[in-house]
């Protein structure tokens, strides 16, 4: 046995020991981190599916970035990184951003893509200004604020976890309760309006749900990458199922799994933020769905095309022999 092998074996032993530690719920903060990651992944997966299907994917990006100024203002007002004020601040600024995107889109000569870009960058710029101001004047600790950028799920507090759980239950319940009107207005807004579904109310309700879920997720994934956790599970799920309940369930599953595996990866390797780790796991799921998914995945489409070609060739040769 060479030295390299021994080192390898040692590394594997250490990694498995740390993995056991992570999944055994031995330490309270690890258990909290794992629960939070699963909840965040599932919640974002559910809300994000509707965003993806309604071509609002990048609203998630705008909502994520735009929470930063609200978080900073709340910190300045409350003077500490306590959970509720920070979350309220983040919620207010995410809602303001959603309204701003709507106003600019309906305003003079504007384009919806540019509206998202403008709101996202200006809100984020304001957030950066406030953050630099806080770093200069803060007398109390602002350590929690830095983690908001790229996420640090291990730093989640019990109160944050409770709020996250409550929001998950509420939004999950609302989704199940209103699944039919939600799906109908997503796929055919005209028909939905004609049968009396309040399409506009559903649109604004969805934007509200988006803001809420972004706010409870930023501690785990960070403001910059929360959009990925919203978009990727939904975009992957459509390769597996055709009907809405299936797509939704798959998106929740993929999101939750990405959350758990991402948190685990960032626990194994020091210095890796949880946000990017979760996003990479989710991307792996997306790529495998794109390749192997039965509904429009690349592999199945290629197989079907081959089959069709062969059938056509067979037809041609049959007809050719018939002529002869």
């Amino acid at each position: 046995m060479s030295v390299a092998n021994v080192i390898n074996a040692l590394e594997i032993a250490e990694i498995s020991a740390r993995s056991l530690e992570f999944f055994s719920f031995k330490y309270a903060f690890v258990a909290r981190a794992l629960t939070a990651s699963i909840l965040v992944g599932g919640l974002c997966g559910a809300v994000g599916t509707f965003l993806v299907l309604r071509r609002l994917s990048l609203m998630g990006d705008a909502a994520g970035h735009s929470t930063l100024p609200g978080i900073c203002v709340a910190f300045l007002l409350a003077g500490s990184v306590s959970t509720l004020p920070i979350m309220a601040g983040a919620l207010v600024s995410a809602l303001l951003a959603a309204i701003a995107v709507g106003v600019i889109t309906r305003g003079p000569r504007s384009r919806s893509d540019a509206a998202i870009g403008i709101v996202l960058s200006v809100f984020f710029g304001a957030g950066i200004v406030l953050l630099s101001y806080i770093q200069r004047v803060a007398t109390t600790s602002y350590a929690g604020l830095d983690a908001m950028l790229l996420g640090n799920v291990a730093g989640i507090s019990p109160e944050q976890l409770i709020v996250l759980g409550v929001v998950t239950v509420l939004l999950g319940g609302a989704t199940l309760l209103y699944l039919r009107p939600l799906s109908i207005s997503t796929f055919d807004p005209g028909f939905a309006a004609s049968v009396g579904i309040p399409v506009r109310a559903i649109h604004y309700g969805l934007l509200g749900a988006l803001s809420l879920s972004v706010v409870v997720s930023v501690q785990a994934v960070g403001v910059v990458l929360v959009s990925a956790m919203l978009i990727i599970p939904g975009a992957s799920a459509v390769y597996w199922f055709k009907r809405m309940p299936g797509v939704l369930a798959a998106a929740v599953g993929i999101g939750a799994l990405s959350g758990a595996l991402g948190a685990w990866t960032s626990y194994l390797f020091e210095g890796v933020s949880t946000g990017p780790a979760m996003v990479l796991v989710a991307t792996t799921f997306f790529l495998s769905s794109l390749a192997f998914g039965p509904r429009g995945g690349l592999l199945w489409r290629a197989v079907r095309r081959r089959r069709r070609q062969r059938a056509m060739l067979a037809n041609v040769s049959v007809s050719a022999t018939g002529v002869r």
Partner: protein
Amino acid sequence: MWELFVEPWTMGAWMWRGTLAATLAAVPCALLGVFLYLRRMSLIADALTHVALPGIVAAFLLSGSVDPFTMLLGAAVVGVLASMAIEGLADKGGVRSDAAIGIVFTAFFSIGVIALSVGVENAHIDTACVLFGDVLGISNDSLILLGITAPAVMLLVGLFYRWLSLVSFDKGLAANLGVPVALVHYGLMGAVSVTSVASFEAIGAILAIAMIVVPAATAHILCDRLPWMLIVACAHGVFSAILGMYFAVWLDVSAAGAMVCVGGVLYALAFLGAPKHGVLVRWARRRARGSSTATSTTASLTATAGRGEPHPEVS
């Protein structure tokens, strides 16, 4: 009063260097932004500015040097790769185009952040600096880089102005006239990547999107013709860069963030008060029309009938 404006310039070379860097970053961003805006591709810029981060990290890991031109090359290559991935996903994979943008850039950005935190611990790449810029302490390398790329981008836009404008307004016509549409497209993508890397130290990866989108959107509210739009966009960029530097000095806050905020305020002013398309003018015009119709109901009835709009309820 004057002292407030003059004093920052006497504080040392950093004010001059910072303003120079910010201006050199703002002009090419604004120029390219106009073309992206007209093609409804503003959010591609969001993707490309984020994607420049993994480009830089990859160039560093492969070459082992922090030489700015290696990084520029890496970012341009990864940028074109990312824009190909976005189009591939949208065309062949059946992903909605906005979702494709969101998936590709977050994935690339995550790879960049992880590689930065794991693989590049001993290099002179500072995460905060790459993300948010450090214009007040800008390095010589970075300033030279901007000094080369900014004129180069301006020159290229000037040379290919006809192709760019034709492709922006009517892709089909451009293709019929023999303009290499795909080449122009990837050229534009490459230029955006190069510009966002060159402006990294000045404004950072995430805020570069503001320097690309906001000037173009402001110019579009104010102008009706492309040449004026380009000029106004550049003016917006330069003005917000300089005023942003002032605010950064006066309030001692992040310079890049201050520039973006000034740009946002300028956009809001144009949105409300633009002479031809602003919200206030449109509102005033609608009111004027409303009061005139109220005085002569018959005129308004014939007018609406003439325009083919539904008659008011008659029952």
